[in-house]
């Protein structure tokens, strides 16, 4: 196990270096730079001043080595979009918001999805099952931006029960602003969880050891929750683990439409604005999160199913 982990971590470091080189080359290959002007072309002297100020006058490999050199010391530069704070400060300010939103969405998605999936499996081929299947198909097929706009029009514009957007800042602010973004984000994963829970539970319930458990005279509740569910969770780990980095790095659309001051929008705006330090930081962040997620889900398999060894 320890040897396995060391090997994996070394592999990951190589992956990060490759990701950083690719990201660096890609972002410098898009035409336009962070300081292009809307109107007339800048006088050459003024343009040179700007490039020199940000070190963009150096050859690419020098820029890359400089960047990696300071990144290793924990200095990821200053965001061009927000020059009064470092990239680290900017991420430190926005990421917790995205994590909080994503975390709540994951919580809602798992609990509701699991509950509906179990009910549907236990009441297989009854009207309850049909409703859960129908609603979860809807949740998977209707894209979140459509759901977001429906919620917004119904609850904010027409009924005026909820604010159109915003996010509580620390302890102050309106908690009601959290309802719509959390529901929007949770709906898709919740439907996914419900469907997978149902189908794998249905399969497990028919297996021999469940019949044995029932024959021992265990109550249906214990049979389903203790014996069946644990095995039914294995496929869920494969399906759900990748949802987590997606949700906690913030989702662009939900954050934008509900005015959540999270990290999500920076994934897009950094590229539009050619905010090189921020592009690199978000790319590396995503790379790290995905690697850790896959590593953890591999380890988690061994916990859920002792037959799997690393």
């Amino acid at each position, binding site marked *: 196990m320890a040897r396995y982990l060391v090997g994996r971590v070394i592999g990951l470091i190589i992956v990060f270096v490759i990701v950083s080189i690719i990201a660096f080359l890609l972002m410098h290959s*898009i*035409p*336009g*730079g962070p*300081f*292009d*002007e*809307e*109107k*007339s*072309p*800048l*006088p050459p*002297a*003024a343009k040179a*001043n*700007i490039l*020199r*100020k940000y070190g963009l006058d150096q050859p690419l490999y020098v820029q890359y080595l400089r960047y990696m050199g300071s990144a290793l010391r924990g200095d990821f530069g200053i965001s*061009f*979009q*927000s*020059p*009064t*704070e470092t990239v680290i400060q*900017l991420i430190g*300010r*926005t990421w917790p918001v995205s994590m909080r939103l994503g975390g709540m969405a994951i919580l809602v998605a798992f609990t509701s999805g699991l509950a509906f999936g179990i009910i549907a499996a236990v009441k297989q081929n009854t009207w309850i099952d049909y409703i859960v299947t129908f609603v979860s198909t809807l949740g998977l097929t209707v894209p979140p931006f459509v759901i977001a706009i429906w919620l*917004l*029009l119904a609850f*904010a*514009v027409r009924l*005026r029960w909820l*604010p*159109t*957007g*915003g*996010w509580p*800042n620390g302890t102050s602010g309106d908690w009601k602003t959290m309802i719509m973004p959390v529901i929007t984000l949770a709906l898709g994963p919740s439907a996914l969880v419900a469907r997978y829970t149902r189908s794998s539970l249905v399969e497990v319930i028919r297996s021999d050891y469940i019949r044995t458990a029932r024959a021992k005279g265990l109550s249906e509740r214990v049979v389903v929750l203790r014996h069946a569910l644990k095995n039914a969770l294995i496929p869920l780990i494969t399906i759900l683990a990748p949802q987590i980095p997606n949700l906690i790095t913030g989702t662009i659309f939900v954050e*934008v*439409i509900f*005015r959540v*001051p999270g990290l999500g*929008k920076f994934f*897009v*705006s950094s590229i*539009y*604005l*050619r905010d090189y330090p921020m592009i690199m930081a978000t790319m590396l962040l995503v790379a790290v999160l995905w690697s850790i997620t896959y590593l953890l889900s591999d380890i988690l398999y061994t916990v859920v199913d002792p037959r799997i060894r690393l």
Partner: protein
Amino acid sequence: MLNHSRVSSLVLLFVIVAALLAACGGTAPAPAGQAATAAPAAAAPTAAAAAPEATAAPAAAEATAAPAAEPSAGGILNGVTLPDDAAPPDQQVLIEHYDNTADFTTIDFWESVYKRGGSIADLLTEPLVRINKNFEIVPAAATEWSVDSSGLVWTFKLDPNLIWSDDTPVTADDFVATFRYGADPKHAWDFTWFFGGVIKNWNDAVAGKVPLDQLGVTAVDAHTLQITTESPAPYIPAMMLYSQALQKKALEAHGGLYNSDPATSVSDGPFILKEWRKGDRLIYEANPKYKGKNKPFIQKVISIGAATSTDFAAYQAGEIDFVGGGNLSPADNDIIAADPELSKEIHPHYGDFRTHYLFFDTKNPPFDNLKVRQAFSHVIDRDTLIKQIIKPSQGIPAYSFLMPGFPAANSEGLKDIQNYDVAKAKQLLAEAGFPDGKGFPKLTLWLRNEAPVRQAMAQAIAASIKQNLGIDVEVSNKETKSFMDALNAKPTQVQFGMVSYGFDFLDPFNMLGVWLGGGRHNWNNAQYDEMVKKAASFTGDPAERTKMFQEAEKLLVSDVPAVFIYHQTVGDLYKPYLKGSELEPDKNGFAAIHWPGYANMSTLVGSLYVSKDVGNRTIP
């Protein structure tokens, strides 16, 4: 004060309006009928608006009239008397969105122009001059100005009463430090082109060839600022809209971003920075120490960070007071047009006098041939485009560059040069050697990250070129930075494109200057350059100067480096409880919040208030 024979008509207007405005202190005249209905208690201090000294009464600044006592009475706020129909002081709040998906690093013009937050900037500084709803220049930090007999040296007298919010006086040194900061190669300002070739030694200072103290901006004494130009520039007062000086002391102590944090922020404008949560919201409060002529009725400006696509929903939900027309989608505009209430809340105006046009790379075939360019200019049916796609509330057909209402505009006189005439177009193309488009290369029409409505327009233009001239045109909507990079490349990489241009200062030279050789378009016409430059520095009869610009524009339209399509008008949405004399119809009949919006370069700040129709709005 001024040498009348040597200044442009604009400057003449400034003087007249300056005198008028000085008389009423920049404070909004009360709406019609106020005098008759004014409650005696509220009427007594209205005269205070006339004299700046009266507004200095310290007690008045703190005493906010109790709203519970008499909601219909105006009351005194920070030294201004609210109009009779104004809402109570706690409702004198302006709530807007700003676009938090766009670059927004500063609220100060001299820090960055293109990364400056849109509608909510420029409230913390007092420029030398400002404009009113008729785009006339009126005094602000400068009480008067004059130019010497050479036409090169401008002297601005500063208002000695002005102070910063840290109680230090506003002096000419603040302006000098600000201009030096703008030219400083280490600062690398993104708007240096604006003063290049105008202010003496500007370009050399930017290039690091002369020290900053050689710049043509000097302090004669504490309250006299002198600006020296390279050649006579009658448009200097108009340019000084962009003289929102930073404080020398704060600039030296904290750098150009000192207004990012309320702790280091300092203001000589009508507002102070109360809170700025990056990406989230920004709050300004009325500056109790403001001594300028643009005292606001509004006590608080709340600007909430949001994507522009959410503006209309928030407006409908009653959360914000204003949505810029540019942020309304065609679908939003359809909803507004169908709604009797909303359609009363939309207010068209000239925006920033923006003209959309097709342009060509005129140095390479096939567009090096004038007849080809002329042929293109005659196949576009602007009237139908406006009616079917743009909608008449969003634009008017353009056959020339300067929008009606802009100085020296000559729309009627130039209307026939690029008129819609398909037969003539076909004939011209045949004469150019491409009968019915035979042998003409396939074209790509580049767009600069255009909204869907202009993508649709470009498709319609491409279709009419295909139909009438037999030339295939593919429309390609590029991302802004890629577009500008290719356009500004030397030699240009854009053969055929559509783009727009809006003004920066109110002088024909500003708009026509974009067509000077070496600029962003690949069209060089020595005669045009000479005409524009000559007119720009002409200090004689203003009427003659206008005529010179009109001749230059005629040459521009005739040589067809561009086919002018439409002048964009902007229909902003704002709540009926926003009132003020600057929202009443202007000289062209537009009743709207004009460019530059609620900023201290506009007399709107001294005029806008919230009427009691607002009811009991929730303030976030």
